[in-house]
């Protein structure tokens, strides 16, 4: 792979490494999506995660990838991003 470099056009007040999106302020009232990547035992794991999150005040929505091997289809990603405030993907093994 070629090494590509650019010069930073910004004021350089933030770190140069790409940053993740800001996290949620709290679970209460947020909708968390759980995306099952469809590997064995994943559903059981996420069932418990869902129940714990609900106890902490979050709304939970469940989704699953049609197959493990391929990345999630575009429509699924669009749906999740429209319906949820945050998403947890699992369980890869």
């Amino acid at each position, binding site marked *: *792979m070629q090494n590509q470099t*650019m*010069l930073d056009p910004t004021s350089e*007040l933030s770190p140069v490494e790409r940053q993740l999106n800001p996290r949620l302020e709290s679970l209460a009232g947020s909708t968390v999506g759980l995306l099952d990547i469809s590997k064995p035992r994943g559903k059981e794991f996420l069932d418990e995660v869902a129940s714990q999150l609900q106890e902490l005040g979050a709304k939970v929505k469940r989704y699953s990838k049609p197959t493990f091997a391929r990345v999630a289809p575009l429509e699924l990603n669009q749906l999740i991003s429209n319906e949820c405030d945050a998403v947890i993907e699992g369980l890869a093994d």
Partner: protein
Amino acid sequence: MNSTSSQSYALVVKKACPTCELIEPVIAQLFNQLQLEVYVQDDPAFPACIENKIDDRSLEFSYHNDIEIVPTLIRTQPDSTEPTGAERVVGWNREEWEKFTGIESLGSNIDPFKPGCGSLTLEPGMPEILAARFKADTLKSRRVDLAGAEDIMEACYERGWSDGLPVVPPTPVRVMRMLAGTDRSPTEIIGKVPPDYVECSVEKVAINAVMAGCKPEYLPTVLAVVEAALQDAFCMHGLLCTTYFSSPVVIVNGPVTRHIDMNSGINALGQGNRANATIGRALQLIVRNVGGGKPGGIDRATLGNPGKYTFCFSEDESDPQWPSLAMDRGYQRGDSVVSLFAGDGVQPVLDQLSRTPESLARSFAASLRSVAHVKKFGMADAILVVCPEHRRVLKEGGWTKEKLKQALFDELMTPGTELMPGVDGIAEGMPEKFKDKLLNKFRDDGLHIVTAGGTAGMFSAIISGWVASGDKGSQMVSQVVK
């Protein structure tokens, strides 16, 4: 290698040079009799006659020693590889070389004279590439190294550098090339860009100018635009924070507009011309990236306007009797000047029937009334863009630009009673205290007149201004292009 003195020499050659090939026997002679380092720009196996040559395919030695021609023979400092200033010979000339080296009978079996070839350091595009390769430390900005799988265009989006349209990735070579467009030092600080009030260097302007798509020859104009935006009177910070529509509109006057081929004619306020498009955009990107001013952050404009991508054009200066905007503002016809106005979009003024300047002026005035709100006076400035056909109507009626300005002023004088809240069933209006006054739509120096556009079409335009105009807000500012 016996040397007759403690002098050492460096020879730069390239295989793809008939002269360098011709002098192979000379190289062998010199190598045997002098302290000589041979640098090869292309093929490290050349010349075959000697074993130890130095691979200069990176052109590092050639670059740092300003090699323009091959072969070049340099006399270096004793006991060092640092060459002394002018002590070199270029191209092959037996007499010169013998004198230079103190060695007789050089190349006695070959032609005594043959000019050299161009050094690889001077191939097209190479100066900037080599500058980026070896003068990297002159660029002070932080490097952003991409991960292997990152697409460089997407990377600019991911990092938030874009205004929504793709930007040109600012690689070191592109930035070096852009910086060559100005004599000003890359480290020179232009000013502090709001809202973060971070110092902005010429280098940062260049990086954003690259991203905007500017050519290096636009850089002096871009620098003038940034300087204008940072003038106090322009009130850039306030303009950024407003919920109103406005953002900088750039108008360029003078010889520079021809040098960089700006558009003042057909579709002047629209798309299609690289200089128009990218100069305006460069300012927006600088405000975004250097200043930190982004929509959703400090920019909370309710609706904004498309000019916030870019809004920049040059004025039509083809009529010597029509003073340019720069001239109105105290400059000479021959000065290259940028003027910035806190403005919104484009409001059409159609008038296809006025045959007299009087009638046309009334059309203009009637449309100008609606700037910001028909019942708000002295609040927003505006620019009236008179199209060439309307200019013709004025000229045929014997009117100067000054006369138009006066006529508009007179036409727009309005009694305060007509502008009171509630009048015409409209709650908006002027405060009570203005009830008994005669008001003008625009404050002093609040209405600017420029001319631009294609020669067909009786459509002029109004660019309305920010509702905080004047010394409590923004005023038009100008800056000479250096």
